């Protein structure tokens, strides 16, 4: 099953469960407080996911390592490499 198919299945399942409970005919409705929470639930979840995304990307951005020592070490290695290669006959 492709990821798209998985998403569609998941959304269909959750969507139908939500619809069944939220849009049920008067005889089968769940109690009022539950219904009040249920109706806006999809929007809440979307907003919650949006916040989670921002927080996660923000955190990862802030903790993205800057490899200063790696850059400095590379410069050293480049110097050593050039010197050694010249010694071995490379025209640099």
């Amino acid at each position: 099953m492709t990821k798209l198919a998985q998403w569609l299945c998941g959304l269909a399942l959750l969507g139908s469960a939500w619809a069944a409970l939220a849009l049920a005919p008067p005889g089968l409705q769940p109690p009022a407080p539950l219904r009040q929470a249920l109706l806006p639930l999809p929007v809440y979840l979307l907003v919650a996911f949006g916040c989670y995304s921002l927080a996660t990307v923000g955190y990862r951005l802030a903790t993205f390592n800057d490899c200063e020592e790696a850059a400095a070490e590379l410069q050293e290695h480049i110097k050593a490499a050039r010197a050694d290669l010249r010694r071995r006959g490379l025209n640099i």
Partner: protein
Amino acid sequence: MAARGPPRLSVLLPTYNERDNLPLVVWLLARTLGDSGIDFEIIIIDDGSPDGTQEVAQQLEKIYGSDKILLRPRAKKLGLGTAYIHGMKYATGNFIVIMDADLSHHPKFIPEFIRKQKEGNFDIVSGTRYKGNGGVYGWDLKRKLISRGANFLTQVLLRPGASDLTGSFRLYRKEVLEKLMEKCVSKGYVFQMEMIVRARQLGFTVGEVPISFVDRVYGESKLGGNEIVSFLKGLLTLFATT
């Protein structure tokens, strides 16, 4: 798959206009792998570089020997995927390392890749910039944001089980890479992503090693709108087809 004898490494180096960096990369590879006692060969696949890369490669072949440096050039710029396929035809190692030839990837991580591979008997070891003490040098905030944002989107949509999907510093078992190259069709960043996604589909295991990516080129080649659009297109294609 059972672990085999001592690793023999084939390093595939596709090059285009890397006349300055190629000798440095080869020197670092020879030094690092030699010091670690790892049996290796370096396959240089140059796509007809106009800047003299091939002349430099020939000099390197004289210095290090034609058993260590294999020149397998092509007539013109034909793309990374086909460069790997071309190079693999001549590879005699049981492991293949793919990496950039512009010094953004440091060969010092290759012994760590090998260690990791042994540790978990992995089919693929992927260098990651996003975990542990992996990281990047030379990127501004905007570039980092794009990178993290794109990676987040990829994780949500593809749940790939690897933290750095667009990285191109990896170790593959030779037969695994051959199998994957048959199946992968995308280009550019998406190609690297597709390799990992298909690998997981086929039941191959992926280990990770934090690496540092030293970008000395970023100043000249900024990440443009075009690349972002094609990345998104490729991501959605993978989402819909894998």
